[in-house]
């Protein structure tokens, strides 16, 4: 038992931090946020060249064969640097969904192209109200065999406007529990993509309308109607990645604010020498440390203890997102007026914190899910 990152894992963290510092700093970010797709395509290519896109994909499918612990280190560093990138949607959501739900042949067709960085995939899983999938799913997969059609609306599709492929969650007509996932080109006839302006400027989302989009049996992952479990597993893995991102963001706002209060002088002394400021930063650090425990443990569980994944993911998603939000809110407060301006980074973290919390089930939703588990006796309340 060694609940600490290995030297190899630390190395991944360090190289990620170095790369993002030089390639994804505040100035670059400001530039990119101004126009579609909202992220740096060159940087994304570099992710592919460095093997980051295939980090957690098995070697048999062209990946590096490492685990979720390693992928989450990348997520944490991207959260810290507030990187806008298709990494989350493609590598932390689409890839595990394909790994868990696709037939071998489909895996062989898709995973190597994800690993190489050749594919950007958006996942159209949510309905119009944005509740965690499959709640509110409003896409129907109708017909049989070669005569299948996808119809309906999906919203909150991350990077939907710049993806090569879409993974679309759909249910059978009049049978919401029979879930299928279809793979279609983003440019397929009948697909309309309407980008939103979102609160969080770093994770663009779109509404996708499907008007009798024709597909075949081979475009459906695995067995039609049987993807429910694969979706849940992929969502929990994605939640762990989001928790890691949130952790990285919380760490960064803590560091940024600590540095600021050491420098900013009011009343003839650094504001960081005032006890009220110090104590607020101490509270931020307390939350950050607990968030580390939550996110790192969940990543370990993803690799080692699948039976604990649902619980650990819910804990990490809810705690890390709350911690990020509170820290980002404190960062604005402790920066004073400047922290409220558009030109300062604080608001970008604050908005990302809110949006990350909302994504795939709010903290309150995750907690309700946890209680359902232990009130049902699935996990003993207790600790040990």
């Amino acid at each position, binding site marked *: 038992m060694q609940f600490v990152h290995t030297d190899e894992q630390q190395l991944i963290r360090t190289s990620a931090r170095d790369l993002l510092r030089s390639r994804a700093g505040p100035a670059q970010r400001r530039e990119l946020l101004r126009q579609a797709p909202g992220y740096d395509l060159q940087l994304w290519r570099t992710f592919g060249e460095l093997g980051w896109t295939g980090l957690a994909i098995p070697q048999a499918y062209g990946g590096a064969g490492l685990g979720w612990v390693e992928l989450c280190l990348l997520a944490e560093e991207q959260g810290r640097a507030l990187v806008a990138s298709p990494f989350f949607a493609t590598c932390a959501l689409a890839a595990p969904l394909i790994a868990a739900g696709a037939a071998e042949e489909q895996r062989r067709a898709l995973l190597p192209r994800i690993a190489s960085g050749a594919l950007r995939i958006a996942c159209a899983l*949510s309905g*119009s*109200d*944005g*509740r965690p999938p499959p709640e509110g799913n409003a896409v129907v997969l109708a017909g049989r065999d070669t005569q299948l059609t996808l119809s309906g609306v999906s919203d*909150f599709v991350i990077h939907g406007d710049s993806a090569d492929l879409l993974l679309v969650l759909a249910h059978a007509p009049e049978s919401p529990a029979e879930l299928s996932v279809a793979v279609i080109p983003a440019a397929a006839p009948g697909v309309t993509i309407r980008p*939103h*302006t*979102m*609160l*969080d400027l770093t994770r663009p*989302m779109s509404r996708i309308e499907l008007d009798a989009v024709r597909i075949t049996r081979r475009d459906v992952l695995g067995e039609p109607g049987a993807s429910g479990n694969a979706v849940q597993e992929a969502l929990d893995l994605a939640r762990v990645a989001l928790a890691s991102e949130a952790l990285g963001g919380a760490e960064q706002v803590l560091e940024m604010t600590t540095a600021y209060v050491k420098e900013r*002088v*009011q*009343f*003839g*002394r650094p*504001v960081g020498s*005032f006890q*009220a*400021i110090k104590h607020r930063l101490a509270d931020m650090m307390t939350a950050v440390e607990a968030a580390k425990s939550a996110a790192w443990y969940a990543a370990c569980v993803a690799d080692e203890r699948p039976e604990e994944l649902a619980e650990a993911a819910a804990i990490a998603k809810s705690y890390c997102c709350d911690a990020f939000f509170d820290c980002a*809110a404190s960062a*604005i*407060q402790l920066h*004073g*007026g400047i*922290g*409220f*301006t*558009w*030109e300062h980074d*604080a*608001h970008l973290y*604050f*908005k990302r914190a*809110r*949006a990350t919390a*909302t994504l795939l089930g*709010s903290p*309150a939703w995750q907690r309700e899910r946890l209680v359902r588990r232990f009130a049902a006796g699935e996990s003993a309340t207790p600790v040990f």
Partner: protein
Amino acid sequence: MKLGFTAKEERLRAEAAAWLHAQLSGPFRDLRGLAKYSGELARRREWERALGAAGWSCIGWPEGYGGRGASLAEQVIFAEEYARAGAPGRLGYMGVELAGPTILACGTEAQKRRFLPPIARGEELWCQGYSEPNAGSDLASVRTRAVLRGPGSGKEWVVNGQKTWTSFAQFADWAFVLCRTEEGSRGHQGLSYLLIPMHQAGVTVRPIRQMTGGAEFNDTFFADARTAADNVVGAPGDGWKVAMATLSFERGVSTLAQQMSFANELRAILSAAEANGLIRDPEIRQRLAHAHIGLRLMRYSALRMLASAEAGRLSNEAYTYKIFWASWRKKLGVLALDVLGPRGEIAADAPYEWDLLPRLFLSSRADTIYGGTNQIQRNIIAERALGLPRESRPG
């Protein structure tokens, strides 16, 4: 202790209600419910003039300066009716609530005659120049300098420096500005409270874009800006004392107007919860109740403040009011977004335009910062109201 009003007061209420109703269902119908200070500039200027022409702009001021000499109770009544009628946020706020009362309290007779009537008529708008990039919480460290120059009776103040967070600066005619007028002075000493015309070459206003996407505040630059030697309120060097007087005017009748926009926000949240069914969620219900309670308590506290003010005292609730409402509104902002759910995070319009409730979520983040951060407020409460020892300062 008595909540009711006199017959005379109730007559004023009826008069105000009738006038407001006529205006806001007639010529100013388009301004009804516009709580925020932004947007519709030209129309809002007309509204200020209409208020002035009908004698409703500054009813608490003496009649000689454009007011009605109304009692505090009457002012409360007018604020209530103003709110009830859905009348818009006031572009004249800074003049009516801050500059005017300060001049009234500390100005010369000539200043009162020159400046008060145009405010009361809604003709001259004001903005406030206190904060500077390095004088935020520590207001006494202002560096904007003003020196008296020129010969004999032609002397005027020449002002250089930068003020920040100057709301209303983009359309104000005048600014009241805290300047350092004694070379080499530090802290509270050597400051003066100057009145400076905004329409001159030496004044540049640059909007500050905020996290809301909007730009309601400004940086205001003074480069050899000028104002007449007489345009100093109080004696030169007494600016700190005068400025503190202004800050205490921020509390009072105007808080009732502010509560009007809070009530609109809460009402919108309640409607959203009723529309999407979250009104049935027990946790949301608790938070709605907390919000409702907070709003009521603000009102009751405002009534207490007014009663104390009438008796000439600054009572304890006045110290705690700012932190109470600012903390309350910040929570309201989070509640708003929680009620809206994920769709609340989609902008109403590109590039970054927001409806009332998401805007509340964003803008409320500034409430605990401007006008004295929560940290500063707590210091003031602890030291002035509770008499705890002052923070030890390094030499």
